[in-house]
């Protein structure tokens, strides 16, 4: 492991949902930074607490190392009874999700709005206001 810089996720809150926006390229050099940035948000992603949406609109590429971090996140959230979805993937990232079978791990949505709608009416209302 290396001490990769924590990735900026630009968290936005809509009612009981937090939208996180990783950007650029995530690979084995900076995946640890993604893990560190996700950690505090995942801690609150549990039954009756926050849900998390990964807004991938600015994510250009994600390698196996980055996907492994997402798998660990999915496992943690499942254990805690929380919900986490993925939205707005660019075509390349969407293909990587399919080829790696991560489309079977996460519910994916075309837009953040659709992702929020699937999680919480309150979050959808907050997003639209």
């Amino acid at each position, binding site marked *: 492991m290396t001490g990769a810089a924590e990735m900026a996720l630009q968290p936005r809150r809509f009612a009981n949902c937090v939208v996180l926006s990783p950007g650029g390229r995530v690979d084995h*050099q900076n995946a640890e930074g993604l893990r560190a940035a996700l950690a505090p948000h995942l801690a609150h992603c549990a039954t009756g607490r926050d849900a998390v949406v990964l807004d991938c609109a600015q994510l250009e*590429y994600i390698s196996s190392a980055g996907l492994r971090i997402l*798998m660990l996140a999915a496992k943690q959230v499942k254990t805690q009874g929380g919900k986490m979805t993925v939205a707005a993937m660019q075509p390349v990232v969407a293909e990587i999700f399919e080829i790696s079978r991560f489309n079977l791990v996460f519910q994916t949505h075309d837009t953040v709005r659709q992702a929020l709608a699937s999680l919480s009416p309150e979050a959808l209302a907050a997003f639209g206001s």
Partner: protein
Amino acid sequence: MRVVFWGTRGSIPVALSAEEVSYKIRTALLAARGWMLDDDEKIRAFVESHLPFAVGQSYGGDTSCVQVDCGGPEYMVCDLGTGLRNFGTEVIARHGPRVANTFHVLLSHPHWDHIMGLPFFTPAYIPGNRIIVHGCHADIEQALRTQNAAPHFPVDFSQLRASFEFDRLEPDRPVEIAGCRVTPKKQLHSGDSYGYRIERGGKTVVYSTDSEHRMDDPAEVEEIVAFFRAADLVIFDAMYSLAESVSVKEDWGHSSNVVAVELSQMAGARHLCLFHHEPAYDDALIASVLAETVRLEKITRGERPLRISAAYDGLVIEV
């Protein structure tokens, strides 16, 4: 160098079922409607040019055994899986049973799918043949002796008439074997496995099977990239999907097509051959994984393209 794949399946040998053969024939006959296929030459051309590989042919089901022909008089094979049986048959057919040969074996590890071909390797029963098993594990000779003994097999190892030698290699230390420079590399697998970088005349083949790559330590990634660096051919364990390999099959000691492409691209390799196919996969699924891997390479390509193949029993790659 010339690489011949005698066995390409992971974990356990498999065979086509009656229903799978029937499906291939029905699909082929449907595809042949309207064609004038009235002699063997036309039928062969149709099968090879117009049918998908997964319909007209098959990836096969023998376990790991890959011959690396370096051009010299001595043979070299990576692993002793069930593909070894057909390799032995071919050697006997070429030379006849009375010509003595030397066989160098580069053993990745002694798990059963990588050694179970030896009891059925006809040259092992012929006096004058010399079999030198190279590997980094301390217990290779014991593993082979145990396999060729009651109650596992009726012919005891002591009754094999070829001479056997066991050459303990050290990881990362190159040695000359059959005119090639061979460098073993320790890999992540239960009980350890070893990949082999085989170099001769400016050409490089890397045999890297039964290896899990977590890709979570940049230093470890760089080590593997250096091992694959500028290889003309990388033979890579791509048994599972990435999602499987980092979840339900984590620590099972195998890797994925996604990691195969990443490491090969980082290393600047020319040709990636997906290997050690999941035994539960049928031909159509392996073909689908190949198509997806080709697509992944295309959408993630850097400065130079990486050729992608899926190994099948009988595949020959000239390097």
